[in-house]
């Protein structure tokens, strides 16, 4: 479980997050939704310490992230896996080396142990016969799988995904979404996914938070979201023709 209390983040004079308080639940896929530029990525990166928050507190299962010293933060980092928007694979390394990288850098395992773990992770994301390829030689969907395999290599308790299906076709998007969802339940992780895709919301959203211009406007479940009365959220949801139909039918 990750809790945020009144998190504010500004860059120089630009206020991006205007006091976000919420709880992200363990064993669930927690979604952060909102338009481009609403502050989703900044929130995610603030949660993991890639941005220092301007004020407010973040708790990882009760442990205050702000008060952690450098050592504790480093230890916590090994419980965190993150999937970046553009996959962020190391482009000079093969698929296998990418997944092995956290093991190489942060554990003292033998090569056999590491190779076994790498293959386990690649199996889990259903990626076969790609071990020796470079990231540039595989498709976008496969790059996402490699990035997921790398993110789970150290058995994290917390998984962060920034727009996991950006740049993917609708079918592959669903596959990646479901993979994240399954892994979350399988390993009982606290997973937070940024998205602006309503298909993901209806597919894997167990707990959903809607942010608008850096403020939390709504939170709830996917069953509640289609009945909600909030101008900005309705604008966001019903921008899609498909969801307009859903609403007309339900009336």
């Amino acid at each position, binding site marked *: 479980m990750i809790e945020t209390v009144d998190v504010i983040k500004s860059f120089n004079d630009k206020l991006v997050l205007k006091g976000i308080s919420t709880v992200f639940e363990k064993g669930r896929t927690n979604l952060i939704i909102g338009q481009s530029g609403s502050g989703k990525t900044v929130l995610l990166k603030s949660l993991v310490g890639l941005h220092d928050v301007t004020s407010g507190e973040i708790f990882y299962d009760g442990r205050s992230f702000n008060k952690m010293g450098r050592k504790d933060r480093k230890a916590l980092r090994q419980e*965190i896996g993150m999937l970046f928007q553009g996959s962020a694979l190391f482009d000079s390394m093969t698929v296998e080396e990418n997944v092995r990288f956290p093991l190489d850098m942060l554990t003292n395992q033998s090569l056999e142990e590491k190779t076994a773990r790498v293959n386990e992770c690649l199996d889990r994301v259903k990626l076969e016969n790609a071990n020796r390829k470079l990231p540039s030689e595989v498709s976008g969907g496969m790059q996402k799988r490699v990035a997921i395999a790398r993110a789970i290599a150290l058995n994290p308790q917390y998984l962060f995904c920034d727009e996991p299906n950006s740049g993917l076709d609708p079918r592959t998007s669903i596959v990646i979404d479901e993979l994240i969802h399954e892994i979350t339940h399988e390993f009982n992780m606290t997973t937070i996914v940024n998205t602006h895709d309503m298909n993901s919301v209806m597919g894997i959203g167990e707990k959903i938070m809607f942010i608008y211009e850096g403020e939390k406007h709504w939170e709830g479940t996917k069953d509640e979201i289609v009945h909600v009365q909030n101008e900005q959220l309705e604008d966001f949801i019903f921008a899609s023709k498909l969801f307009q139909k859903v609403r007309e039918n339900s009336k």
Partner: protein
Amino acid sequence: MKVFFHIGRYTLFVKKVFGRPEKHTVFLKQIVREIDKLGIDSVGIVLIISFFMGAVVTLQTAYNIDMPIIPRYTIGFATRDSMLLEFSSTIVGLILAGKVGSNIASEIGTMRVSEQIDALEIMGINSASYLVLPKMVAFVLIIPFLVIISMGVGITGGYIAGSVTGEVPSADYIYGIQYSFQPFFVVYSLIKGMVFAFIISTASAYWGYHARGGALEVGSASTTAVVTSSILILLFNLILTQLLLA
């Protein structure tokens, strides 16, 4: 002032670069790879520019001191000291600021904008140290060899140019390059080279590391890296000359 902002941020960056490497085996492997990429790959360009610089300095000196009272061996002497004092360190440094500097800035800048640096940080790895320290160490270690090669090739270039044109008798040239030889000039050049290598690697990495945006910004970070490195080389050339030769 922007300059002070960059000096401050650069100082903090360099401090971060000197962080302890995560894994020594990984670090050593990286150094070997960087020696190959930054050093061995630069031998070709160093050979070419040094040869031509030596040749040109020799011919210019020959045409300029066309007076009987000045002995011909002065030409060899002038070529040797020009190479030793200035060309093999400063000019080679400037050329490498272009080649190595833009290479480092664009590599690290690309990693920044594609979030590969964030991916390192999220694992708890000091990304500045992981990415820059091996490059810096490798480049500082390899540059003395490049400087020495440049001196040898430059002096040889002068010899060949002098002989082929018939402007400088080879016996005079060979006497000249041995005349009043001061070994400290070599040391001075090597010190300069190593300082320049430190400047090129860290200043270029600094611009790449702090790039924001996309491919366009990586491109301009790379240009800024080359310009900054070159200016710093000229500045430190002056400072070091005053410190070491005055």
